Each structure stands twice: as structure tokens, then as C-alpha cells.
């Protein structure tokens, strides 16, 4: 911040008075952001290298990490949470994004009537909080109320109903699909915007060459919206790897049944604050947060330095 008064190379020889206004404009955002976001993040990373030994906080190097990865009790929940989190992410990539793209493609068909209505309605769940969404679905899927089995009965599928949220084989998939239901609006909107940005000339040229309908979507539109697909993928990745609220609401802090829906966010919460007979552990909490940070950082770097560089951007 001290070098703010130095201007660019071409005007450097002329000594200008210190431009206080730049400092004034930048200072509030810089200070709040640094104090509340960056410093705590760094402090958390630092804490992961310390632990309590005989009541004193001492530097322990990477011991916390080795404990997390190999301690019989802790590592089991950690690997379980990481695996579940991966499945959670894969389900989002396989269901949420394709459905979002399909909805956007249908909405962007020219002169489609009621398009605004559909768009507005489909985006509603995205605005609701996890708490609302979680409870609504808990009620709908509850065998006590009987909405879900009742509806499945209409289509003759009553035999297929099960208390999905209560069974450890199906709980994670069910929770993921609830999250997909809520968030499908975001890929839909971003892809829809990208599709609208494709100039008419390009599509007309394609039509002159006889490329219409399906093949037009696959051959012309899809390649042009690839950058947006990249962005929604990385947004999904970051969102999924620090998800917490929905699982906490639907399955509680223990992320049951049997930890089958435990992901890194809920594990962090339990480890840091403690739950029932387990004591809260600040250092271990910081360690898990650090691991989450590294995972997200790896994903974002992969996107920025590998995927985004290779992707061709078309300028119109």
C-alpha cells in the first residue's frame, strides 16, 4: 500500500502529489476484507500446525494431519466424509448441471411462449434457505405424512417407496438430489445467459448450412457455451466442498444414519464444537478447515491454470 503514489512508467518522471483519494477509496474494503476474511484464514491455517500439549499450545508440525489421516477413530470419519463429499459432488455434476443446461436450452428456443414464467418459477427454490428446503423435503419424504408414497401410488410405484432419508444406502443420494432440486436454477440461468449471447448471425449461418435443431445445439451452441459450463462446474465444486446447512438441517449434526451423509462441512462443525459426548477440538477443527482449503484451492487452480487456459473463448 505504500507505493500507491508511484504512477505508471510513462508519467513516472513527473512527481505527482500523493493521491490520497485512491487510499481513501480502497481502505474500507481492504481493511474489512483483510481483517475478517484473510487474516482469520491465515490464522486457521497456522492453528492447524499447533495443538494443546499439557494445557499449552505448542507447535507440532504436521502431527495434526497425520492424526487426521491415520488415527483409527478420527481418520475413519474423515475418509468417510471425504468420500461422501466426492459422491455429493459427482451427483451434482451428473444431475444438476445437465438438467440445468437442458432447461436453459429449452428456454432459449426463440419465440417460446411463457418463457419468462417458466424461468421465474424454476428459480424459486434457489432463493429459499436450506432450512426451509430441508424441512419441506423431510416432511414430503416422511412415511408418516405419506405424500411421497401417496403420489407414487398414482403411478403404480408404491412398492418402490422407502424411507430414503432414514436408510444409510440411500440417504446420501436423497440429500444430494434435494440439493440439486434447490440449485438447478443457477446453472440454468448462467447457461441461459450464455445462450442468449450467441449472436443471431452465427445461428443463421448454421441454418444456411442446414444445421438446425438438435445438431445445431450439439455442434454450434454447446461449444460456444463451454466456458460457462466450466464456470458452473467450478462453482459447484466450491459450493459442494463447503456445504453444511442442508445436511445439518435434514440429518442433524451427526449426519446420520450412521454417518452416511457426513461431509467435510458437518465433520468440521462436530470436530470444532464438539457434539454430545465428544469434546470440541480447536486444533483439529483448524486442521480439517485447512484440508478443505487445500482441496478447494486445488480445484480452483486446476480450473484457472489448466481448464480455462485450454478452453477457447470466442469473441463476437
Amino acid at each position, binding site marked *: 500500500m505504500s507505493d500507491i503514489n508511484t504512477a505508471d512508467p510513462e508519467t513516472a518522471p513527473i512527481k505527482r502529489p500523493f493521491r490520497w*483519494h485512491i487510499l481513501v*477509496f480502497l481502505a474500507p474494503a481492504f481493511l474489512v476484507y483483510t481483517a475478517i*476474511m484473510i487474516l*482469520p484464514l491465515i490464522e486457521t491455517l497456522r492453528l492447524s500446525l499447533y495443538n494443546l500439549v499439557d494445557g499449552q499450545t505448542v507447535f507440532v508440525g504436521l502431527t495434526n494431519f497425520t492424526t487426521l489421516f491415520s488415527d483409527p477413530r478420527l481418520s475413519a470419519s474423515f475418509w468417510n466424509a471425504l468420500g461422501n463429499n466426492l459422491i455429493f459432488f459427482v451427483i451434482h455434476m451428473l444431475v444438476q448441471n445437465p438438467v440445468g443446461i437442458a432447461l436453459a436450452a429449452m428456454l432459449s428456443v426463440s419465440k417460446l411462449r411463457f418463457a419468462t414464467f417458466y424461468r421465474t418459477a424454476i428459480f424459486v427454490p434457489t432463493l429459499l434457505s436450506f*432450512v426451509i428446503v430441508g424441512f419441506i423435503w423431510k416432511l414430503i419424504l416422511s412415511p408418516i405424512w*405419506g405424500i411421497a408414497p401417496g403420489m407414487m401410488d398414482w403411478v403404480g410405484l408404491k412398492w418402490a417407496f422407502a424411507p430414503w432419508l432414514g436408510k444409510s444406502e440411500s440417504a446420501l443420494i436423497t440429500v444430494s438430489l434435494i440439493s440439486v432440486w434447490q440449485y438447478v436454477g443457477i446453472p440454468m440461468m448462467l447457461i441461459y445467459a450464455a445462450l442468449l449471447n450467441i449472436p443471431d448471425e452465427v445461428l443463421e449461418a448454421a441454418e444456411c448450412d442446414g444445421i438446425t435443431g438438435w445438431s445445431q445445439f450439439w455442434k454450434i451452441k454447446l461449444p460456444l457455451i463451454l466456458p460457462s459450463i466450466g464456470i458452473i462446474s467450478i462453482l459447484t465444486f*466450491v459450493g459442494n466442498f463447503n456445504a453444511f446447512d442442508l445436511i*445439518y438441517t435434514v440429518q442433524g449434526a451427526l449426519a446420520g444414519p450412521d454417518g452416511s451423509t457426513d461431509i467435510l462441512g458437518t465433520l468440521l462443525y462436530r470436530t470444532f464444537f464438539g457434539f454430545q459426548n465428544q469434546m470440541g477440538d480447536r486444533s483439529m477443527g483448524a486442521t480439517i*478447515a485447512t484440508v478443505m482449503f487445500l482441496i478447494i484451492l486445488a480445484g480452483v487452480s486446476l480450473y484457472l491454470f489448466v481448464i480455462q487456459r485450454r478452453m477457447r473463448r470466442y469473441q463476437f
Partner: protein
Amino acid sequence: MATARTSYLRTGLIHLALISYTLIALFPVFLTLVNSFKTRNAIFREPMAIPTPSTFSLVGYETVLKQGDFIGYFQNSLIVTVVSIALVLLFGAMAAFALSEYRFRGNLLMGLYLALGIMIPIRLGTVAILQGMVAAGLVNTLTALVLVYTAQGLPLAIFILSEFMRTVSDDLKNAGRIDGLSEYAIFFRLVLPLVRPAMATVAVFTMIPIWNDLWFPLILAPGEATKTVTLGAQMFIGQFVTNWNAVLSALSLAILPVLVLYVIFSRQLIRGITSGAVK
């Protein structure tokens, strides 16, 4: 456009698919709202029916308003959201202006530094944020939430606003300078009014995650006096799990303000998203 052969079949199928998905998206919300106005028996016997005079009941709402301090929760959520958005917009616009308007050494670096937070979630620093808030005596205050949400909203706000500010014409600003306007006056009187549409977009993007957040209220301000609607509803429902009328009414009360705001602002919100503000 070349007369693309409109196949009725294709349009019909598209409508069918979109209507089906619209139903999937709206059905749970509809179900909650409708059943919150029914008696307990009617909720179970005919969950799909619209309330009739014989099944109509407000007993759920009475429980909610008597047992939980929902008006207080609303107030808290409103204060936190409005103050955070105001700070994000003001600080974000100022920083975006500095980054897009002036050339100074470290400009690019500062831009990258401030953009880090778009991808790295603030939640990961929770352990140290809580420590800091305890040290500053801010636990169980709305100030703690406002500070956190301001920090959380700034990176994206700065990013979007500086993209927009680059499009404001230099001639206009230079004309202002020749007329003797200070840099502050140029920012507040010339540039800010011109980027108002972008500000609206940023406001909406900032608002949704703040209003809906459960993590920080749960950790930083779980006290009765500072509960937000999201946390309040969560705890209330946890307590009244078997009282279906109360649960459905609490859910409806939490949905309604969002739904009303959305109906009013949906045009602006969707225009904001689709105008390419986020690319």
C-alpha cells in the same frame, strides 16, 4: 431469420418438459403453504386439498407467534441483511472505482488479492473468526454478523462493479474534472448513478446468501436476542417437530417474505443474472 420450420410437436414437447419441471420446482412450496392453513386432521387425511371452510385453521400460526419470537427474528435478519448490503455496495463500489479508474503500482495485485475471496469461502476461517469475535467481545451481536457478511460479499461485488465501471465513458469523467469536481464528487455524483443497474444485481447476489445463511448465526450469534429468521425457524422446528401445524406455519412464515420480494424484483434479478454480470 430464415423461416425455421416450426414443428408443433417439438414446441409441444418443450412445453411439456418445462411445465413438468415447473411443477417439480413449485410443488413442495405450494404444499407447505396450503397445508399450513389446515387443521391437523386435514393435513394428514387430504394433504393435496386446498383448505375449505371446514378444514381451515390458523392454529399453527397461533402457536408460532405465541411460542417463537418470529417478529424479533425478522427484525434481526432485516437489520443484518440491509446493513451488510449497504456496506458491501458502498465499500465495494469505492474499491472498484479505485481499481478501474486509477493506474497505480500494485493495482493488478490488489485486484487479484481482493478477488481471492470469490473462490475461497469465508467459512474456512471460522475457527479464527470465532476467536477474534470472542476477543473483541462481539459474540452474540448483530455487528459480528454484519462484519462477516460484509467481508463475504465484497470480493464478488468489487469484481462485478469494476467490470461495469470500466464501461463508464472517460470523457464524462474528464469533463467533470475540468469543471473542477473533486475525485470524490466524480465518484458519487457521476459514476455511481451510472452503475445503478449493476448495483442492483450485486445487491441481490449479496442478499440471498446472507438472508439464508445458517452457519454464522449458529456459530457467532445463537443467542435468543440475535437469532435470525433462518436460525430461529431451524430451532423452532427442531423443538416442535411433532406439531405439524406449527412446523408448516413456521416454514410458510420463513418462505413468504422471500417469495414476495422475488415476485416484486424477479425481473430485475433475472435481468441482472442474464445481462452477463457474472461471466
